[in-house]
Every structure is written in structure tokens, then in C-alpha cells.
């Protein structure tokens, strides 16, 4: 038997969105161990982590589809549906970039030159930090909905997003440094490898870019 009161509540996208960003972060987080194994040239571990990343990305993708399906136009929500869908999209892209970069490195069995290895691992870690901060910000969604997008909660989220921006700026700086460090030694490396190393740096940096865009999307929600 259907009940009016029970059915009047559409399925809330808030918890699923928080769950989704968590999966996306867990996916990105694997990059730390992934690249550590790449530097060690421990290809068995690399393959294992690569599979795990693919699984998590797949999981995020499925949840994304599920959330979309459960968000029909007839839902009445405090924030525009479109903004929530776009937030979901950029969250998902954090996982996508992770999968892309791990796929590229694993597929070409790429080696990170010893000269830049430490800096590169730190660069990866900062990108993962950005994803983590994005997760922290999105996890405030429920509180934002409860407080009606105003007051102390908004200030809190704004400060979280500011912190996220700082992390992203840091990854940008590190990315530039890494590029010039690579430029210094590129003559000693195989040209094709060099091209793909630049590509790996770029793709990894995009994880922080996507995390920052998660922040931008959240900010848009705050402004309603």
C-alpha cells in the first residue's frame, strides 16, 4: 500500500552525493600507493592498484548514473537540480582523471626518472589532498541543506573551499616546478617517454583542477 506522506519525499540526492565524492576520493587516494610502486618498479603491485582504481572509478560511475536517474525534473529542491548534477559531474571527473593517468602509466609501463621522483610523489600527494578537501567540503552538504544555506554553516563551507583553492594553487606551482625539472633532464630521456611524462604530469594536475571545480560548484549552491 502506498502512503502519501512517505511518497511525497523524493529520494534525497544529498547523502548519495556525499557517498559519491567519498568514492571519488578513495579512488584518487590510490594514486599515492600507485606511483610509489611505479617508482619502485614493482609492476605486480602497480597492476593490482590499477585494477582497484578501475573498480572504484566504475563504482563512482554507477552511483553517478543512479543519482541522475533518481533526480527527475519533478523534484522540488532548495537548490537547482542542474547545479547538483554539475557538482556530481565534476566529482566524477576526479575519479576519471585518476583512472586515465593510472591507465596511461600502467599501459606504457612508464618509469619516473629518479631525479624528479620525490618531487613527483609529493605533487601526486598534493593532488590527492585537493580531492580530500573536496570531499570534506561536499560532506557539509547535509548541514547546508539543514541550515537553509545561510549563517555559520555557509561561512564554514566558504573557509573549506578557500583552503581547497590554496591546495590547488600549490599543485599548480609544483606542476610548474616539475615541468622545468623535467625540461632540464629531458635530453637524456627517450623523446616518446618525455612526451608522455609531460602528459602524466598534466593529467595528475587535473585531479586538483577538478577538486577545485567541485569547490566552485559548491560556491554556486551557496549563492542561491
Amino acid at each position, binding site marked *: 500500500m502506498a*502512503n502519501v*506522506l512517505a*511518497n511525497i519525499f523524493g529520494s534525497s540526492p544529498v547523502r548519495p552525493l556525499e557517498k559519491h565524492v567519498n568514492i571519488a576520493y578513495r579512488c584518487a587516494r590510490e594514486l599515492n600507493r600507485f606511483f610509489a610502486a611505479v617508482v619502485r618498479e614493482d609492476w605486480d603491485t602497480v597492476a593490482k592498484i590499477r585494477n582497484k582504481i578501475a573498480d572504484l572509478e566504475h563504482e563512482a560511475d554507477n552511483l553517478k548514473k543512479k543519482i541522475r536517474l533518481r533526480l527527475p525534473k519533478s*523534484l*522540488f529542491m532548495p537548490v537547482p537540480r542542474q547545479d547538483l548534477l554539475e557538482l556530481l559531474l565534476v566529482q566524477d571527473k576526479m575519479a576519471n582523471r585518476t583512472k586515465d593517468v593510472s591507465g596511461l602509466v600502467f599501459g606504457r609501463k612508464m618509469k619516473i626518472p629518479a631525479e624528479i621522483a620525490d618531487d613527483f610523489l609529493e605533487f601526486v600527494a598534493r593532488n590527492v589532498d585537493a580531492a580530500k578537501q573536496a570531499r570534506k567540503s561536499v560532506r557539509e552538504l547535509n548541514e547546508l541543506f*539543514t*541550515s537553509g544555506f545561510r549563517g555559520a554553516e555557509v561561512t564554514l563551507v566558504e573557509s573549506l573551499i578557500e583552503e581547497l583553492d590554496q591546495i590547488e594553487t600549490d599543485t599548480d606551482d609544483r606542476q610548474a616546478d616539475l615541468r622545468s625539472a623535467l625540461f632540464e633532464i629531458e635530453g637524456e630521456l627517450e623523446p616518446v617517454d618525455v612526451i608522455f611524462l609531460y602528459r602524466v604530469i598534466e593529467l595528475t594536475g587535473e585531479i586538483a583542477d577538478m577538486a577545485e571545480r567541485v569547490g566552485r560548484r559548491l560556491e554556486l549552491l551557496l549563492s542561491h
Partner: protein
Amino acid sequence: MEAEIVYVVLAALFGVFMAWGIGANDVANAMATSVGSKALTIRQAILVAAVFEFLGAVLAGGEVTSTIRKGIVDTDLLSGSPELLIYGMLASLLSAGTWLLIASRRGWPVSTTHTIVGAIVGFAAIGIGIDAVQWGQVGTIVMSWVVSPLTAGFIAFLIYNSVQRLILSQDDPLAQAKRYVPVYIFLAAFTIVLVTIVKGLKHVGLDIGLTNSYMLAIGIAAAIAIVGAIAIQRIKPDRKAEKKAHFHTVERVFAVLMVVTACSMAFAHGSNDVANAIGPLAAVISVARSGIVGAQSPLPIWVLVLGGTGIVVGLATFGKHVIATVGRKITQLTPSRGFAAELAAATTIVIASGTGIPVSTTHTLVGAVLGVGLARGIEAIDLRVVGRIFVSWVVTIPAGAFLSIIFFLIFKSILP
């Protein structure tokens, strides 16, 4: 004489069956908000519902019962043939029961109130004559079906907005909640107690005057608010749970408030909906007893007690399962939101009960929930369901009317 006993027994059977159905289905809407927000356990909800539905029915159910009983049909026209009123009321009860059974099987969101009013209007207009219906009164009732959800929505909007401004958006929401929630408790208790005293006590034979009523209401509400404030002071923040959800402890403070609004809601529901079951029964009894229509006989209190008991039995047999199911589905309605909806709906319904207007409890509550939603309090509301409610609203009245006409004609031909 024997025929009259048959009528009364039949009406009592149908009426108790209706009350049972209301207890089994409708009460869930009044109580599930509290269970869904975990302010009450199922067991506590059943207890609260049993006590306050019953109190509401007996203390404040009189006005609406008398509207159903003699406010819709112009009984003067029937003075020559009192048996027609008996057939009609029996037919109304039976058709309302049938329609509700069909509708709940199909999952249509129909209202008990709309069904029974449609049924009574139906048998009176077609079975007796267009003039037999007091159209002015019916117009008021139908208007109230639009007005009551709107009013409840408006009140809920204001209440939830104030909660957001005073508590949820502040730097220390917990301290603010501890300060303001007792005030909300006072307001909730005051409204319900006042309307009950002013409108309800007359039916149980007490009349204490308006000034005294206000004083008494303030006294009782203050006492309840103080008990609530003590309970609130004892709530200690749970740091671990708060890491996951900042408003965890704040919601626990609101849960105390929600116990009060849950009682109000059960009371309001009892005061309005019991009339749907026993209004027709009361009409049959009054005609069967005196043999004349429109006698100024007072409503026997045992009829209200019978209705209240029927609701409680329905609640105890099937209602608890429905409460559990609905409660599980409406977790979006946390105590801070649920209380706003419940308080707004209960206030609207109790005022309607005091004025003798049968409104739909569920629709009023839905209006209140939408009001909270408009205050940006609810994550997602499915507007398709709101649309479906509107459609069923339009369909129910003719359906109830049609069925009651058929039953009326059958009764007229087979009963003595």
C-alpha cells in the same frame, strides 16, 4: 422498535469498522513523522497515539461529529421520513469504507474526510433531493480543504524559517536550541490546550469562561515547557556523532520538542477524524432513539468513546506496521523539520476541529511539509505525488457520492 436496534447495531458496526480503518491507516501519517525522525520509538509512538487520539476524539471531537451528523443534510426536510436519514448514513459509512478499501489497495492518496463528506452529499442530493443538502455548509467545508493545507503550509514556513534564523544558522546552534526550543514547546502546548479547553470541554459538560481558559492554558503549557526544558538541559553533546553530522545534538534537542508536537498531532487527528466514523453513527442513533429527525439530543459521550476505541484498536492491530513502514521512508524529516510540519498541521487541524469543520489530516500535513520545503528545509519533494493528491482529491468526492447513492437505493429497497 426492533428495526431501530438493527439500525443502531449496523451503524455501530460500520462506524467502528471505519474508525478501525482510520486507526490502521490514517494515524500512521500523524505519527510516522515522529518515528521517522527517531524522536519516538514505534512502541512510544503507539502509546502516544493511543492516549492522545482517544483524548482528542473524546475531548475535542464533538464539533466535527455534529457537523457530519447534522450539518450537511438539511434534516428538516426529512421529518416525515426519518428512516431515509438512517439509510443514507448507513450507505455513507459503507461507501466510504468501500472506497477507502479500493483506494488503499490501489495506492491512491485519498482522504477519509473527503470520502465521507462526498458520500453524505451524494445520498442526500440524489436519494432525497438537491435541496436536502445544506450547500452553504458544504461549500465552507470544501473551501476548507483548500484553505487548511495552505494555512498549515504557511504556518510551517514561518516556523521553520524562524528555526533557521534563530538556531540553525547561528554560530552555536546547540546553545540557541536549548534557549529557544522550550519556547516552541510552550507555543505548541498552549495552542492545543487552549483550543481544547475553549472548544472541547463544553462537550464533556465543563464551561470555565474565556479568561480562565487562557489562564489554564498558559499554566499547563508552562508546566509542559518546564518539563521539556529540564529534559533538554540533560542532553549532552555527542562529539563522535557530531563529527559526522554537526547538527546531531541539536536534532536531539528538537526531538524533545517533537514528542510534544507528536502528542498534539495525535490529539488533532483524533479530534477531527473520529467524526468521519462516528458522525453518521451519531445521526443514526439520534433518529432511532427519538424517532424524529433533527431532535436536539446531545451527542452521547459513549459514541465518541466508541470511535476513539475503534481508532486505538486499528492502531494496535495494523497501524503499527504502517507507522514503521512510513517512518522508515521519511527520514528526510529530521526533528527540526518534522516538528515545524507537525506543529503547523496540528494547529490548523485543532482550530478546524474547534470550528466544526472536517478537514483532511493527511492533506493538511502534506501542506505543512510543503511549507517546510518552501523554507528550503527539505532536500527533495516529489511534485508528481503532490499532483496525484490533487487528482485523487477531485475524484474522491464523486466516487464517494456515487457509491453511497447505490447503497442508499439498495438499503431503501431491502430494509424495512
